[in-house]
C-alpha cells in the first residue's frame, strides 16, 4: 500500500479486510531494504514490527483497537525504546541500549502504532543537514545528491521515500520544519511542553520539542493528540486541550517583512507571494513587524550551545557509553572517551557553550542572550495581539548539495534563520509543502501560532492542502 492517503482510509481498509497489516509491514520492510542507499534508518525492527502487525491486525478484527491502529511509524534515534539501541547517531553511544521507553513513544505504542525502526539524525540532533551522523550522511530521496535537512533528516527521508506512514522527529531550532521543507512533507513543532521529553536525549532542554512528520493534514491532529499531555516524569510538560477542527475563516495572518529580506531565495519568495495572493481571497493578511528576530540565530546558538555543553557533560565514559582504552588516570579517561566518542560539530558546540558559560564571559554572552530571548518573545507577544498566525518561509533556500556547507559552520547555522525564533519563544510552528522550485526541489511555507494554538496551524495546513493547486 504505497498509495497511502491517510490513516482514516488505511484503518477503513484494515477493518474491511481489504488490506492486511502484516503484508503492509512486509512491504515497508522490503522497501526499506531496497532503499538502503538513502541511509534513513539506524535500526530496523523487523521482528517486532511483524509481531505487532499480527497482534494489531487481530485487535482491529475484534473491534477494540487504539487511535493509531496500524499506522507504521519511524522514530528518530534520540528517543528511547526499552531494550533497543539508542545512539543519537553518535559513536559515544554506539553500544547503548535503553532501559526504559520514552513517554512519547510509549503513547504511540499504547495506541497500536507499529514502530518500524529508528531513524538517523545529526549527532545529538546538532545540525541542519544530517551530515553530522557518525554512521554516514542521509540522502534526500527527491535528489540523492542533496541533503534531506536536519537534524531529523532520517525521519524526513524515511517518510518522503514511503518507508513508513508517518515519522517522529525533534525540533530544537528547526530540526523538524527544515527537513520537512527539504523533502516536501508537513512537519509540526508543537508548543514547548505539550509533549513530554521524558526519554528524549537532551540537547538544549529549554528548546527541545518532539513532533510529527506527516504526508497529510488529517494524520497530524491524530498523532498530536496521542503525543500530547502532562507527564510526571517531565516537570516542564503541560496538560493542553486537544486539537480541534478549528474554524479559521475569520483569522488574521501576519506577514513579517523581516522574514523576506536579503538572503531569501528568489524562487521561494515568488512562490510564497503567489500563495499569499491566494490566501488573501479568504483571509485578512496584514504586514507585521518582528524587528528583533534578526538576532535569533546569535541568541539561539549562545543559549543552545550553553545548554548542550552542560547536558553532554554526562558522557564521561564512566557509567555508560564509549570508554577509551587510554585511561591512565580519571582525567585522561574523561578526555579520551569524550574526544574519541564525539564528532566535530558536537565538540564545536560543547566548546562554544563552555566558553559562553565560563567566568568572565557569562554576562557578555549567556546572560545577554537570555535578555535578547525575552526581547524576541516580546516581539511575538505584540504580534499575536494583532494576528492569529504568522506566515514566513521555512528555509532561505531549498535542499542544498551534500558537502556544500560542511566546511563553514556559520553558513550552516544561518540555515535556521526562520525556524529558531519559534524555539526561542516556545510557540508552535508548522512547515507545509507549497510546490517545487525550477530544480524540482520542494519549497516549505512556515506558519507560527501563539502557544497551544496548534489547531490553527493544522487548520491552515488543511486549507492549503484543499485549495492550492501545487506547482
Amino acid at each position, binding site marked *: 500500500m504505497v498509495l497511502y492517503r491517510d490513516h482514516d482510509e488505511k484503518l477503513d481498509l484494515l477493518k474491511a479486510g481489504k488490506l492486511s497489516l502484516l503484508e503492509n509491514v512486509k512491504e515497508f520492510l522490503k522497501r526499506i531494504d531496497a532503499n538502503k542507499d538513502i541511509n534513513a534508518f539506524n535500526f530496523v525492527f523487523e521482528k517486532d514490527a511483524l509481531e505487532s502487525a499480527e497482534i494489531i491486525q487481530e485487535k482491529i478484527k475484534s473491534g477494540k483497537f487504539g487511535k493509531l491502529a496500524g499506522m507504521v511509524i519511524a522514530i528518530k534515534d534520540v528517543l528511547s525504546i526499552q531494550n533497543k539501541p539508542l545512539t543519537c547517531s553518535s559513536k559515544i553511544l554506539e*553500544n547503548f*541500549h535503553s*532501559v526504559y521507553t520514552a513517554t512519547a513513544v510509549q503513547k504511540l505504542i499504547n495506541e497500536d502504532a507499529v514502530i518500524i525502526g529508528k531513524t538517523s539524525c545529526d549527532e545529538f540532533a546538532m545540525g541542519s543537514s544530517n551530515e553530522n551522523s557518525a554512521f554516514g550522511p542521509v540522502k534526500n530521496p527527491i535528489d540523492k545528491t542533496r541533503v534531506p535537512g536536519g537534524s531529523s533528516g532520517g525521519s524526513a527521508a524515511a517518510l518522503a521515500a514511503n518507508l513508513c506512514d508517518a515519522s517522529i522527529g525533534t525540533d530544537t531550532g528547526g530540526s523538524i520544519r527544515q527537513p520537512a521543507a527539504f523533502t516536501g512533507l508537513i512537519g509540526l513543532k508543537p508548543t*514547548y*511542553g505539550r509533549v513530554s521529553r521524558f526519554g528524549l536525549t537532551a540537547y538544549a532542554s*529549554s528548546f527541545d520539542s518532539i513532533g510529527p512528520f506527516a504526508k497529510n493534514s488529517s494524520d497530524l491532529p491524530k498523532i498530536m493528540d496521542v503525543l500530547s499531555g502532562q507527564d510526571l516524569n517531565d516537570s*516542564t510538560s*503541560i496538560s493542553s486541550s486537544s486539537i480541534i477542527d478549528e474554524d479559521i475563516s475569520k483569522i488574521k495572518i501576519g506577514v513579517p517583512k523581516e522574514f523576506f529580506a536579503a538572503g531569501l531565495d528568489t524562487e521561494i519568495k515568488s512562490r510564497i507571494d503567489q500563495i499569499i495572493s491566494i490566501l488573501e481571497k479568504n483571509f485578512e493578511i496584514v504586514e507585521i513587524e518582528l524587528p*528583533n528576530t534578526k*538576532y535569533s*540565530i*546569535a*541568541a539561539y*546558538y549562545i543559549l543552545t550551545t550553553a545548554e548542550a*555543553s552542560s547536558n553532554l*557533560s554526562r558522557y*564521561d565514559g*564512566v*557509567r*555508560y*557509553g*564509549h*570508554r577509551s582504552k587510554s*585511561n*591512565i588516570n*580519571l582525567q*585522561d*579517561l574523561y*578526555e*579520551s572517551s*569524550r*574526544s574519541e566518542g564525539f564528532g566535530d560539530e558536537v*565538540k*564545536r558546540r*560543547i*566548546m*562554544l557553550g*563552555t*566558553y559562553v558559560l*565560563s567566568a568572565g*564571559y557569562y554576562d*557578555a*554572552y549567556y546572560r*545577554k*542572550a*537570555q*535578555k*535578547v*530571548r*525575552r*526581547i524576541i*518573545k516580546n516581539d511575538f507577544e505584540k504580534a499575536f495581539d494583532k494576528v492569529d498566525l504568522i506566515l514566513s518561509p521555512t528555509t532561505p533556500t531549498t535542499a542544498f548539495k551534500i558537502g556544500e556547507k560542511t566546511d563553514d*559552520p*556559520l553558513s550552516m*547555522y544561518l540555515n535556521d534563520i526562520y525556524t529558531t525564533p519559534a*524555539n*526561542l*519563544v516556545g*510557540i508552535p510552528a508548522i512547515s507545509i509543502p507549497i510546490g517545487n522550485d525550477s530544480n524540482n526541489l520542494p519549497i516549505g511555507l512556515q506558519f507560527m501560532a501563539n*502557544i497551544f494554538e496548534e489547531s490553527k496551524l493544522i487548520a491552515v495546513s488543511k486549507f492549503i492542502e484543499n485549495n492550492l493547486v501545487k506547482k
Partner: protein
Amino acid sequence: MSVNNKQVEQIAKLARLKFDENEIENLTKDMNKILDYMDQLNELDTDNIEPLSHPLDLSNVMREDNLKESISRDDVFKNAPSHNEEFFKVPKVINK
C-alpha cells in the same frame, strides 16, 4: 570579543576534550567567526530587560516525597563499560 589558541586550549580543558595543535588552530578560527557573528547582540540595549531562561511561565510545583520504584542496579550496569557487583569501576583516583 575573540579567542586565541591558548584560550581555546583552556576551554578544552574545562570541557574535558583533547585536541591536537591543528585542531586547536581550526577551532580558534571557527569559534572566532561564530563569536564575531554573535557580537551583533551588542547592538541591542538590554539594560532593563529581565533574562528569560525558559520559554513558558512555569512556576515550581511540589509533590509528595514518596518512594517509588526506580531503575534496578542490574539494568543500570547493562550499559556500564566496567563495573563490579556494586560499583562502576574507574582508574585509580588517589595515588599514595
